[in-house]
């Protein structure tokens, strides 16, 4: 209430508002009206009607407004039966936490594989780099996971995308440093290890499709990867320095949007709003 006293100049009504139709009301009067501290009878000219309107809006409850009592009490009783009150709310909070960690781990896997795609594309074939990288970054996290990781991981990823920003930070720092150099070498190692075994499955995965694209065709992967193996150790550092910004696009595509939908205010004061007792803050 004190920090917004200095608002005087801001109080001009918009241009389309015919303020002249009203006697000037000072801000104290308006605050009294807002807080229901002004008796309509003592309202200054021009504000009597408003005072009565606000009094009507805050009139005592009508029976109609309390008609839902039985239903609400039944819901309360049912909730207490199914979740008997415990004095330690942590017990209910625990499974959620575990789930979040699992989801974050799944997201990390997804991000690493996406990072690998971008690195393989951008690192070695500059002219093909941007299309592939764009493709990777254009794919939403969930879509990418659905193609590359299977439905379970995709579902987890969706949850992870809803998780808090702390997870996002963890993911970013885990992925950032080695996404360029090692991922492409790893991709090649994975390819070479699987050669002759189950090509069918591997060729379907997004990562290996990108590898094929980077190599200029599935047939060229072997040769391409030999070059990678030869140059990887020497170039890794330099590449990560010179790599285009698009390399970092896939990880960011998985992180939750900062202005997420205000789905539910979630559990109230699990954080304990402290002495001041503000309302429980949500993600927003």
């Amino acid at each position, binding site marked *: 209430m004190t920090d917004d006293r200095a608002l005087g100049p801001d109080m001009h009504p918009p241009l389309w508002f015919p303020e002249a*139709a009203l006697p000037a009301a000072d801000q104290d009067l308006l605050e009294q009206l*807002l807080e229901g501290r002004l008796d309509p009878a003592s309202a200054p000219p021009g504000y009597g009607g*408003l005072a009565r309107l606000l009094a009507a809006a805050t009139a005592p409850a009508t029976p109609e*407004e309390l008609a839902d*009592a039985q239903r609400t009490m039944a819901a*309360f009783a049912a909730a207490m039966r199914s979740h008997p009150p415990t004095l330690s709310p942590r017990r209910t909070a625990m499974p959620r936490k575990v789930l979040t960690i699992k989801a974050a781990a799944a997201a990390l896997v997804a991000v690493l594989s996406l990072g690998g795609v971008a690195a393989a594309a951008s690192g070695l074939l500059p002219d093909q780099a941007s299309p592939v990288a764009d493709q990777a970054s254009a794919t939403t996290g969930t879509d990418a996971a659905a193609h590359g990781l299977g439905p379970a991981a995709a579902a987890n990823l969706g949850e992870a995308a809803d998780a808090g920003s702390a997870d996002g930070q963890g993911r970013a720092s885990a992925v950032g440093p080695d996404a360029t150099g090692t991922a492409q070498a790893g991709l090649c190692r994975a390819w070479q290890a699987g050669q002759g075994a189950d090509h069918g499955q591997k060729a379907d995965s997004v990562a290996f499709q990108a590898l094929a694209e980077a190599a200029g065709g599935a047939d060229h992967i072997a040769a391409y990867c030999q070059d990678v193996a030869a140059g990887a150790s020497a170039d890794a550092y330099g590449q990560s320095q010179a790599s285009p910004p698009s390399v970092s696009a896939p990880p960011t595509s998985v992180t939750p949007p900062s202005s997420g939908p205000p789905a539910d205010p979630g559990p109230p004061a699990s954080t304990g709003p402290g002495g001041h007792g503000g309302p429980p803050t949500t993600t927003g």
Partner: protein
Amino acid sequence: MIGPRFPELLAGAQGGDEQAFAVLWRDLQPAVLRYFRVAAAPAAEDLAADTWLAVIGGLGRFRGEERAFRAWVFTVARHRAIDWHRQAARRPTDPVPAERLSERPAPDDPVGQVLEDRSTRAALALVAELPPDQAEVVALRVLGGLEVAEVARIVGKRPGTVRVLAHRGLRRLARRVEVTGLLGDVTR
């Protein structure tokens, strides 16, 4: 407001005491319902019920005094209203303005109703006619009994902005009421 008994009632409700919860509900339900009559009139009853279900679900984890409790309940309520508008926008067959009009008890002359019989519903309908951001802030302050800082946190705006919106809303309402010719000499 409940006052000094609030901590005891909250603890009781958190322990499963229906009577204690009933007191909390009766104290806030009218304000919640009226908030929805401003913020999402066609669905006010349902959204109020949804809000209480969510409050029941989170009650055990709530910590704080009465003002914080009110602010939390209205935070939940506001999210319901936002969700409802979002869904309504996706349903082109569900024209909101028409429904809001049909919801009003006296579409012809809500101002007259307010001045003559102090109808609460008519007053809320007038508040609902304000631009949405003004209506929301006026509703939270007047109906919710919340302070500037609390409303600011709930709607995610700066306290100064909240203050300006509320004052603009009131000026606009005052003009709306006075302009009809039923002037301030109509006492009660």
